[in-house]
């Protein structure tokens, strides 16, 4: 089996596990989950809401577990993730409003952070021993700071104190969401600070990983060979970096999950209308159908990102293509 097919298999299984976990978790709770849920809600529940909860559990609890499971799967495949308890809106509709913001914010900052971090890391590895090495302890510190804490500090310093950036939200209240320049520029303006804080928190991981790989690669014979061949310095660095980046990409699947996890909280800090904020609000309100829907969508998004990373990896490393493991 080709490695790429193998990876695909892993992702399919992962998606299935996530879906199944979503199904099983509430049912593993002691007692009647629906009653527990309703008990947790601190206001009077309308029959419609009870129905919504029931639906999110795959129909009636009196049916067999297997029957419930298939009902659940069937609904999911038809895009029905249940109805939010607090908002009384289909979860899918809510997600449609939030997902673009998150994909934009986290997607762009992850890509930025990866490229800037990898580039700096390659440079650090190549010029090892130079003054630039003093970046390492700083980077290590930033790596250890929780995303949301860094976001908070930046919001305080650059938002409320210096007023360099707008403070909360995703766009100015003076514009309405539409594809106009006024709106887009406002969205960019409001996205800058959260983006910078995500990039700053996540960049050290890429940077240090790339630095280590670069140092390892510079010790390889083929890099020495490219020096012996009299290639220009730029080409020599490229040779080393081209090979050093492969493990970085191979590790993307681990890293993307971590970065997304951390970045979701930044939305809370900046009151950004994305999935992360939604999730935390849902948790606060114990809106279980919404929590499950969000978990599912995040997992699928991360899996998709992993798949892209894998495809890039397979494209960049010819050794994976032959499928030969002799």
């Amino acid at each position, binding site marked *: *089996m*080709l490695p790429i097919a193998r990876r695909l298999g892993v992702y399919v299984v992962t998606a299935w596990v996530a879906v199944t976990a979503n199904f099983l978790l509430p049912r593993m709770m002691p007692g009647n989950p629906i009653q527990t849920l309703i008990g947790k809600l601190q206001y009077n529940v309308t029959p419609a809401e009870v129905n919504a909860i029931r639906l999110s559990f795959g129909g009636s609890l009196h049916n067999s577990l297997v029957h419930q499971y298939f009902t659940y799967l069937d609904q999911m495949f038809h895009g029905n993730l249940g109805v939010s308890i607090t908002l009384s809106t289909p979860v899918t509709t809510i997600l449609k409003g939030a997902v673009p913001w998150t994909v934009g914010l986290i997607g762009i900052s992850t890509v930025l952070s990866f490229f800037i971090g990898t580039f700096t890391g390659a440079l650090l590895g190549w010029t090892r021993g130079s003054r630039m090495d003093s970046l390492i302890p700083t980077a290590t510190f930033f790596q250890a700071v929780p995303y949301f804490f860094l976001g908070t500090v930046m919001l305080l310093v650059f938002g409320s104190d210096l007023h360099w950036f707008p403070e909360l939200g995703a766009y100015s209240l003076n514009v309405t969401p539409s594809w106009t320049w006024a709106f887009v520029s406002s969205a960019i303006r409001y996205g800058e600070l959260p983006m910078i804080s995500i990039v700053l928190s996540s960049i050290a991981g890429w940077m240090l990983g790339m630095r280590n790989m670069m140092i390892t690669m510079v010790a390889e014979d083929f890099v020495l060979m490219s020096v012996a061949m009299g290639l220009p310095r730029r080409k020599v660095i490229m040779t080393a970096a081209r090979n050093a980046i492969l493990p970085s990409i191979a590790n993307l699947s681990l890293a993307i999950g971590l970065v997304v996890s951390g970045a979701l909280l930044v939305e809370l800090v900046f009151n950004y209308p994305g999935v992360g904020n939604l999730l935390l609000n849902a948790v606060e309100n114990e809106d279980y159908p919404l929590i499950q829907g969000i978990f599912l969508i995040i997992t699928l998004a991360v899996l998709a990102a992993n798949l892209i990373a894998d495809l890039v990896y397979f494209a960049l490393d010819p050794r994976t293509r*032959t*499928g*030969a*493991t*002799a």
Partner: protein
Amino acid sequence: MSDTGSAMSELQARHLTRHFKIRVPGHVLSAKRIVRAVDDVSLDLRAGQVTAVVGESGSGKSVLARLLARILTPTAGELILRGTPIAAKARRSLAYASDVQLVLQDPFGSMNPVHQIHHNLIRPLRIHGASKDESRALAETALRRVSLEPPERFLDRFPHELSGGQLQRISIARALCVQPKVLLADEPISMLDVSVRLGVLNLLRGLCDDEQLAILYITHDIASARYLAEEIIVMYAGQVVEYSRGTTLVDAPTHPYTQLLIASVPDPSNPLSMAPHVGEQNLTTFAEQGCRFSPRCAQVMDICRTEEPPAFLVGESHTSKCWLYRDRPEASVELAIPKRRGEGATTTK
């Protein structure tokens, strides 16, 4: 066979065969191919005698050593340890481990870097029943047997503090600890410095002469085989292509492959311009049908491409698996007793 020697057979292999399934590169859905890594090999290891197996990488010589040590299970064939057949699929017993020991190629790799030398020597002793107190003394004795004196100087060292030659001697000492009757040495000198190689070869010679060990010496260096061995076996693509007692095989090679091998040995009396052009040995150049050497053979005939040759008797105690000698009698001696292919597993319950 007239010249089996008076020495007693410690370990015999009969029609030993091992196949591996490998995935063929480029095929998406498990197109597997069977590689006959060791194919119908028979040999006798006798007390006080060195048998050399010569072959290039991919000839199956290392697999053969592991089959004989029984850390690999044969696909077919049997092993006979001092007259007693061993069931092929049976678990390797501790008794077998103490009778047949294997020394590996890489002296640096075959010592655990986190343990001192004494761990490497005392563990086998403890496994094979020595008490804690006596094993340290026995370990020192073992070091003396491989001329590492004084032994105390080595016991508490870590592997990285010693040279390759010393480590290989310790490897041999580790094998000797359990008092084996058969010592299998898989390229024991190929990773050593040139100047210490002979020391290790002479050590093996001494063990063979003084302690009547049966030694299998595996090598790619035919000159060292000639130096050390009483019997030489040349392997190609998992098969024995030529066998002789004494050095006949080197002095008057009959098989085209052996001739090629000998012509390739660096030799100041043999100008480089005579270098043969035959292409490389690898899985793709092994013939599936007929003689496995035929694609590279300079003297290839039609029959070579279709039929696999048996071993012919080309001299006294000298066989050659080549159609060039089809006028000679088929060898019915140790290495080519009549074929029983397919029955190989009968003795294995």
